[in-house]
C-alpha cells in the first residue's frame, strides 16, 4: 500500500517498522475471511484490513488515538489468524502491538475501562494476588448477577463467571528448583512457571515435569522468573511488558550459564508466542537485545520440545480427542502438526473440529474485556468441537481451557496431561 510518512516520522524506529509492515499490504482482503470478529460482526472496521487502515491513518497523521479507532483495535483478539492467511507476509502482530502502545500513550479511556484494565494488570500477572482474588471471587460469586446489571461493575461480574469454583492449593511445580531426570539425562530445560496457569491448573506443569523427567530431561524452574508479560503487552503497557521480559531473560540466562539449557519449555502457547518475541520486543535495548534474542531462540512449546525426544509409539487407547489448536499455537507460533502427532503416537484418536482456524474467544483478557463477542465465538467453537463427538478435548493453552470448559461438559485437558497419562502417569482428573 501507498504510505505517507515524513522522514522525521520515520526517524522513530517504531514508525519505521510499521511503515515497512504497511508497505507489504496490498489490500487484497483475504485476511477478512479468517478474522473471527469480521466473521462475527460483518464490518470491515472489525477486520484486519480495516484495522490496518485505521492504524495507518492514525500513524501517518501523527494523531492521538480516538474512540472510533480504539473501539475497533480493542475488538482485535490478536489471534493472528490473519497472519496465517496473509499471502503478502504482513506482520500484523507487530503493527497492532505498535498501535496498542500508541493508544495507551495518547488515549484516555473512560474511568470504568481504566479501572478494569488497571485491576487486570495489577492482579493477573502475580500468582499470589491472583490466587487471593480468586478466593475472594468465590465469596463474591452470589453477587455476579447483580454486578453484571451495574454498568461500572459489569466487567467484574463477567470475571466472577470465569473464576473457577475452587482454587487449587499452591503446587510444588511452581517452586523454583531442579527436578532431576528419572533416567539417564538426555537434556536440560527451564520450565516457565508463569502467572495465571499455576494458580488455575497446576496439574499442567506437574504433568510436564513428570513426563520430561521420566524421559531423562532435567527440568529447572528458575528463581526470579514470572509472568511473560503478554497480558500487559496486549494492553499496550509496554514498560511493564518489557520489565517482565527483562526479568525473565535474566532468570533464564542465569540458569543457562550455570548448567546449559536445551530449551525454555512453555506449556501455555499464549506465553510462548510472547517469549519467542522477546528478541523483537527488546531489539532497541542495547543491554538486552542480544540476550533476549538468545532466550527467544531457546523458547519452545512443550510439544515442539517433546517432538525432538522421539517418544515411543503406544497402543491405541480407544479414546477420541478433539484437538483444539490455540491461536497462539497455530497462528502465533505456527505449530500445527506436532501436538496432534504426539497425541496420535501416544495412542489417541485425534479429530480436527471444523473452523479450527477461528479463535475460541479467550484471547488473554479478551473474554473479560469483550464479553459479547467472546461469548459468540465460544458458542461457535463449542458447537464445532462437540460435532466431532469426542471423549475429551486436548489443547495447549490455559486461556482456551478456561474458556471452552465454561461452555461444554466434555472434559478439556492440556495435551501434556494426556501425554503424561499415556506414558505412565496417573489418569488426569476430570476424565
Amino acid at each position, binding site marked *: 500500500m*501507498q*504510505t505517507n510518512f515524513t522522514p522525521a516520522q520515520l526517524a522513530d524506529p517504531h514508525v519505521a517498522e510499521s511503515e515497512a509492515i504497511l508497505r*507489504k499490504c*496490498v489490500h*487484497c482482503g483475504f485476511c*477478512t475471511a479468517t478474522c473471527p470478529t469480521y466473521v462475527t460482526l*460483518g*464490518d470491515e472496521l472489525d477486520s484486519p484490513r480495516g484495522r490496518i487502515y485505521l492504524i495507518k491513518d492514525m500513524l501517518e497523521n501523527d494523531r492521538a488515538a480516538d474512540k472510533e*479507532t480504539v473501539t475497533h483495535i480493542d475488538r482485535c483478539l490478536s489471534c493472528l489468524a490473519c497472519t496465517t492467511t496473509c*499471502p503478502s507476509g504482513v506482520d500484523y502482530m507487530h503493527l497492532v502491538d505498535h498501535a496498542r502502545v500508541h493508544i495507551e500513550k495518547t488515549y484516555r479511556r473512560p474511568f470504568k475501562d481504566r479501572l478494569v484494565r488497571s485491576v487486570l494488570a495489577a492482579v493477573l500477572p502475580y500468582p499470589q494476588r491472583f490466587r487471593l482474588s480468586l478466593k475472594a471471587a468465590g465469596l463474591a460469586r452470589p453477587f455476579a448477577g447483580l454486578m453484571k446489571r451495574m454498568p461500572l461493575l459489569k466487567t467484574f461480574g463477567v470475571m466472577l463467571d470465569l473464576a473457577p469454583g475452587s482454587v487449587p492449593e499452591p503446587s510444588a511445580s511452581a517452586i523454583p528448583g531442579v527436578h532431576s531426570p528419572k533416567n539417564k539425562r538426555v537434556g536440560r530445560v527451564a520450565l516457565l512457571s508463569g502467572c495465571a496457569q499455576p494458580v488455575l491448573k497446576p496439574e499442567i506443569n506437574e504433568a510436564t515435569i513428570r513426563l520430561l523427567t521420566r524421559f531423562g530431561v532435567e527440568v529447572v524452574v528458575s528463581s526470579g522468573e514470572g509472568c511473560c508479560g503478554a497480558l500487559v503487552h496486549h494492553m499496550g503497557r509496554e514498560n511493564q511488558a518489557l520489565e517482565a521480559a527483562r526479568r525473565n531473560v535474566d532468570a533464564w540466562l542465569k540458569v543457562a550459564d550455570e548448567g546449559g539449557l536445551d530449551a525454555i519449555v512453555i506449556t501455555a502457547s499464549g506465553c510462548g508466542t510472547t517469549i519467542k518475541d522477546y528478541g523483537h520486543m527488546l531489539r532497541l535495548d542495547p543491554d538486552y537485545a542480544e540476550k533476549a534474542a538468545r532466550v527467544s531462540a531457546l523458547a519452545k512449546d512443550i510439544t515442539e520440545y517433546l517432538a525432538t525426544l522421539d517418544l515411543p509409539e503406544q497402543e491405541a487407547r480407544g479414546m477420541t480427542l478433539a484437538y483444539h489448536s490455540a491461536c497462539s499455537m497455530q497462528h502465533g507460533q505456527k505449530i500445527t502438526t506436532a501436538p496432534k502427532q504426539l497425541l496420535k503416537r501416544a495412542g489417541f484418536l485425534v479429530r480436527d473440529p471444523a473452523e479450527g482456524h477461528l479463535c475460541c474467544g479467550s484471547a488473554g483478557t479478551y473474554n473479560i474485556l469483550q464479553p459479547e463477542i467472546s461469548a459468540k465465538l465460544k458458542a461457535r467453537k463449542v458447537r464445532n468441537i462437540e460435532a466431532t463427538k469426542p471423549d475429551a478435548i486436548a489443547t495447549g493453552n490455559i486461556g482456551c481451557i478456561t474458556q471452552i470448559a465454561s461452555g461444554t461438559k466434555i472434559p478439556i485437558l492440556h495435551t501434556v496431561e494426556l501425554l503424561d497419562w499415556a506414558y505412565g502417569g496417573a489418569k488426569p482428573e476430570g476424565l
Partner: protein
Amino acid sequence: MAETIGFLQPKQAVITRRREIVADLSDLLPEGCLISDERGLKPFETDAFIAYRRMPLAVALPETTEQVAALLRYCSRYGVPVVPRGAGTSLSGGAIPQEDAVVIGLSKMSRILDIDLFNRTATVQAGVTNLNISEAVSADGFFYAPDPSSQLACTIGGNIGMNSGGAHCLKYGVTTNNLLGVKMVLFDGTVVELGGKALDAAGYDLLGLVCGSEGQLGIVAEATVRLIAKPEGARPVLFGFSSSEAAGACVADVIGSGIIPVAIEFMDKPAIEICEAFAHAGYPLDVEALLIVEVEGSEPEMDAMLASIVAVARRHGVATIKECQTAMEAAAIWKGRKSAFGATGRIADYICMDGTVPLSQLSHVLARTGEIVASYGLRVANVFHAGDGNMHPLILYNINDPDDAARAEAAGNDILKLCVDAGGCLTGEHGVGIEKRDLMLHQYTQTDLDQQMAARAAFDPQWILNPSKVFPLEGRPAA
C-alpha cells in the same frame, strides 16, 4: 500519483445535505449498521485496486433484503449515488466509492438460506463468500464450481457483479454458467426475482444481463447457484518449460487437440518464485514457465487424459513433469496459485491486468507483454488462467513513487490494448470497474456503448448505481 482515471464530479446538492442524509439512513438501519464518521469511512475508500481512493459519504451495512430495499428507495428518491460492495476484493476498482455516494456493503448478509441437494442448488445471501458455499456442501460431496483466486474472501454478490471466473472455470464455466437465480433490489427499492432453481427461465435471459453488470442494474441480495458433484478424484500436475512461449504454445495445442482438463494455469519464473516463497508447494524453480494442469475423474480417466496431455507437452519440449503424490501437495499447489497476487506484495506493489486473448495469440501476447513492460523500465510477473486465455500480467512497481506508478498504468493500458488488438477483450473476469473504463472505446464503438448504456438506463434511469464505473465519462447520455 497524478490520477489519469477520473470520477464523476460529486453532486453538490448531495454533499451539502450530508448530515440530513446520514440521519435519515440511520433511521432505516439497526444500530451499528451505519458508518458516517470520518475515521470509520476511511477504510472503505478503496478496494484491492489501491492506486485509486475516494471517501464515501456514508457506509451502510444492511442485514436484510428489506433494509437494502429501504436504502435504495431513499437514495433514488433523493438522487444519492450508491456503490455496492461485497468483500472489497475488486482488482478493477469496482467497489471504490465517491464523495457523494453511499456504500451499501453486503458483508452482514452472510447467511446460507437453503441447500437443496436433490435439485443441486444453494440459495445464499449475497454476502456469503464463494468458498463458504463449497464448504457448506463439501461433506455431502458437492461444490460450487467457479473459483476466483480470492474465493476465500470474495462474496457471491461480487462474483455476480463481475461475472467472476477462476482456475476451474475452463471445464465448469464462469459465474454466469453456474447462476440460476437472483433476488435483486432495483434502483427504486423494488425487489425482483430473476430465474429460479431451473436451468433456464422463460422469457428474456435477464439473469444473463445482470451477471457481470458491475452493480449498475441493481443490488443482488440473494442468489441461487448450481452445485456440482465432486469428481471421483483430481490431480494437479506441474509441467515446467524452458520458455514462456513454449508453455503458451503447449496450452494452445492442448486445447486445440480437443482436450479440456479442469484447469490449465500458467506461471512464469517471477511468479513461480513469489508463490513458492509463500506456499512452499514444490514448484520447480529451475524452469522459465510452469503449467499447472489439473485432470479429474476416475483413475483410468485421469491417466488417459494425462497421457494425451503429456504427449502434447513433449512436442513442446517440456523440461519437467511433476505429479503430486498427496492431497496435501495438491492443496499446497493450489494455495500457492490462488495466493499469487497477494503474495506478490512480498516483493513489490502491483497492478493486475485481466485481458483475454484467443489461445492462438497466447505466445505472441506473452512475449509482447514482456517487451512492453520492459520498455517502461518495469518488471512483470505472469500468472493466469491459460486454458481460458485469460491473462494476468502483474506489473510490478513502487506505489510510493509517482513516476513509477504512472509508468505502470501506461504499461497496463498498452497491454490491454494489445489484448483487444489480438482479437481478445479487456477483461476476462475482474470487470471493467474504473480501471479499464476509459479503454472501453478501444474495444467497442460508441454505438455499441450507447446500446449497453440504454440497457443500463432501462434498469436505472437515474444512473445512481455505481455511476463512475464501466462507461467512459465522455459520451454518456445527458442527465
